[in-house]
């Protein structure tokens, strides 16, 4: 824990206008360092992760390119390189690094990337329903029952238990396949989204299509999370 009286935990909140260098008040327009006094500039807290990493809002991302950009920006912002600088610069470096790390972590993983994009474009995807996907409702309900039964009976080996375990393992495989199917569909939608997003002058049908792609992705992401949680539960219980 940091003890406030000892360390400077009451760091001055840095909420400076992005248009002016905090140090020499000259114009800055999104550069990381002021052109005049070369001081590091805070990344705007409102900046989204795509903008932070200098990327268009597309879902297909070249992993090596992203990693290189992350490394390059880490070299600009990491607190290790600000140890000898002023408190203000160190605070900016800390905030920028934390934002950069969050941006990279989110965009590096395709699922998190998609969740983030859907949230940016169309509100929260975190409202994951507590109901199983409609078409799997019956199947999952009976699976939950089996799982309860298995948990209750485990510890007393019997032929029934072995049979139940085999059934659960096969259900698990089915669900894993189901998860993979959802992911392939999701990645198809990545391409659709990117194609639509590249249209410079989106027409009304393009906008409508984007809406429906986002909606389907949100559905898929939410169902996938549900299925994955059950799979994890199954793997932990029956191996």
């Amino acid at each position, binding site marked *: *824990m*940091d*003890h*406030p*009286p*000892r*360390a400077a*935990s*009451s*760091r001055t*909140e840095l909420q400076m206008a992005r248009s002016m260098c905090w140090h020499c008040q000259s114009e800055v327009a999104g550069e990381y360092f002021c052109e005049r006094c070369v001081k590091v500039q805070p990344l705007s807290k409102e900046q989204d992760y795509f903008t932070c990493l200098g990327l268009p809002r597309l879902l297909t991302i070249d992993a090596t390119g992203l*990693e290189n950009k992350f*490394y390059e920006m*880490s*070299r600009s912002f*990491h*607190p*290790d*390189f600000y*140890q*000898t600088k002023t408190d203000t610069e160190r605070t900016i470096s*800390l*905030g920028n*690094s*934390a934002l950069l*790390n*969050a941006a*990279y*972590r989110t965009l590096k993983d395709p699922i998190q990337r998609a969740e983030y994009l859907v949230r940016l474009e169309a509100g929260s995807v975190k409202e994951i329903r507590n109901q199983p996907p409609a078409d799997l409702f019956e199947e999952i309900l009976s699976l939950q029952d089996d799982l309860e039964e298995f948990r209750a009976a485990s510890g007393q080996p019997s032929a029934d238990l072995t049979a139940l375990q085999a059934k659960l393992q096969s259900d698990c495989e089915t669900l894993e396949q189901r998860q993979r199917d959802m992911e392939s569909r999701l990645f198809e939608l990545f391409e659709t989204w990117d194609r639509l997003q590249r249209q410079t002058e989106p027409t009304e049908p393009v906008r409508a299509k984007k809406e429906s792609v986002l909606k389907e992705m949100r559905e898929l992401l939410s169902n996938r999370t549900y299925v994955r949680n059950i799979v994890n539960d199954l793997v932990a219980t029956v191996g």
Partner: protein
Amino acid sequence: MTRIVGIDLGTTNSLIAYMDGKTPTVVPGRNGRTMVPSVVAMTDNGLIVGDAAKEHLVRNPERTIYSVKRFMGKGLADVQSEVPYFPYTLHEQGGVIRIRIGDKSYSPPQISAMILKELKQRAEGHLGESITKAVITVPAYFNDSQRQATKDAGMIAGLEVLRIINEPTAASLAYGLQERTQGTIAVYDLGGGTFDISILKLKNGIFEVLATNGDTHLGGDDLDRVIGDVFAKDIRDQYGIDINLHADDMQSLRLEAERAKIRLSDDLKTSVTLNLPDGKGQYRRELTRDQLEGLTLPLIERSLGPCRLALKDAGLTPADIDEVVLVGGSTRMPLVRQRVEALFGKTPHWNLNPDEVVALGAAVQADILSGGTTDMLLLDVTPLSLGIETMGGVVSSLIRRNTTIPTSAKEMFTTYVDGQTSVDIHILQGERELAKDNRSLARFQLKMPPLPAGVPRIEVTFLIDANGILNVSARDVRTGATQSVAVKPSYGLSDDEVERMIGESFKFAAEDFKARQLIEARNEAEAILQATNKALGQGGHLLTADDLTAIKSSLAALEGARLTEDHKAIRTRIQDVEKVTHHFAELLMDTSLKEALQNKSLSEMTEHSEKA
């Protein structure tokens, strides 16, 4: 820019290193050894640290503290199972373990500070300048409390701790610098008390940690214990003696177990000898490497679970690992090497000294912080998930384990009752669902404006800095006003306590200085006695009877003075011996060793002849 040193504050041994130009270098002691045993003895003459303190383990077990790192950032309940193994008395105060020595109590950071001071003085002597800034290493799997305790230790020792850095990542820096390693590497670090596994990607000077895992209670100490337990059982069965009741013999047993383990890294069998308590004879047995491996296999297997978890978290399989690097003294055991090789499917290597590589890496990190090295950058992660307790004792996760640091998470808090003026927040670290199964880090109280329920909006930012240490700040979203957060650590010293301990450490310094002078004078006396006696053996026939008598009586006087507590008297006798042997040294030089040894003192000369 003042120099920043790198310190490996280990369970068993500690080291201090610096950058000599572009080369990280460990500071050697007067005896040439780079490792300072992490042992502190509180003698009647004051404080002794390191090699000299190690001698007190057997002589003075209740007043000699070792393996204090195991207690850093812990409460008494955390270490209950190992309390019987330690000869000193532990108690708890304010959630922090205290070690009672006589009528005084010391916190683990205070003891660690004594070791840090010893290292600091060693570096100051070697470099001829004052040392005030340091990078200190900790096991990667250390939690927030353990890191903060290490930082406190630095402050008590009069060091500004610029960075707490993880041991396996420090090692990777040393490898990256000296071996130009690239690709994906696994650093397997089994030390005296802790185990870490870190998986890193090394690319163009960036050291990105992908995942880390470990066990902060698994190391050489634990291996020694299972071996020692066998000896203790033998002694009970064969002689009916419960060695646990004899603190000094327990220490001899522990040290003999450690030595046998070390010997069995080279030999296939070794013999163990221990003097039994109260002059009841000797215990002897043979220990084979097979037996050792049978005893220690379960412990070594325990390290493989974290390795698999780290691989899983990194999204990798063993085949994706390009190199496996071994760090820590315990990796000298052939069984460790075999098990690691079997898991990763490739031969691990230890091209750099596994005892020194962490300190060397800390020196590299120190150089990065001072602006000396700019082409290397370490991107480390937080080892444990961080969360807060919510309704029903469930943990709401804020920051996942293996998240690159620095990182921050924001959480909005409000009130449930009209006019409620505060909300209590409990911060935890760990991977479990329920608060009670995780490590409590700290609690704090958030002040709320007295408004209808649900109206106040206080945004709390949890920031894990580059040290892996949590910082908390709060802001009223409605007014924009920031609120200072007085965080009360669950297992840590309060600010006042740290302040007081810094004050005390200055007070002790005077006593310590006296003890140090005595030890140094005694060591010097011993060296000169040995050297002169050796020289007499080689060239005594060159002397006249009078000279011989004079030398012998000066040696006897020094021998006598050495046993007193008076360092000034010892110094005077040393000078006397030097005076009466001056002629003898010249004689020796003129005769047998003329050509090579111009202007050398007697002791240096015999050193040379030893090597020749």
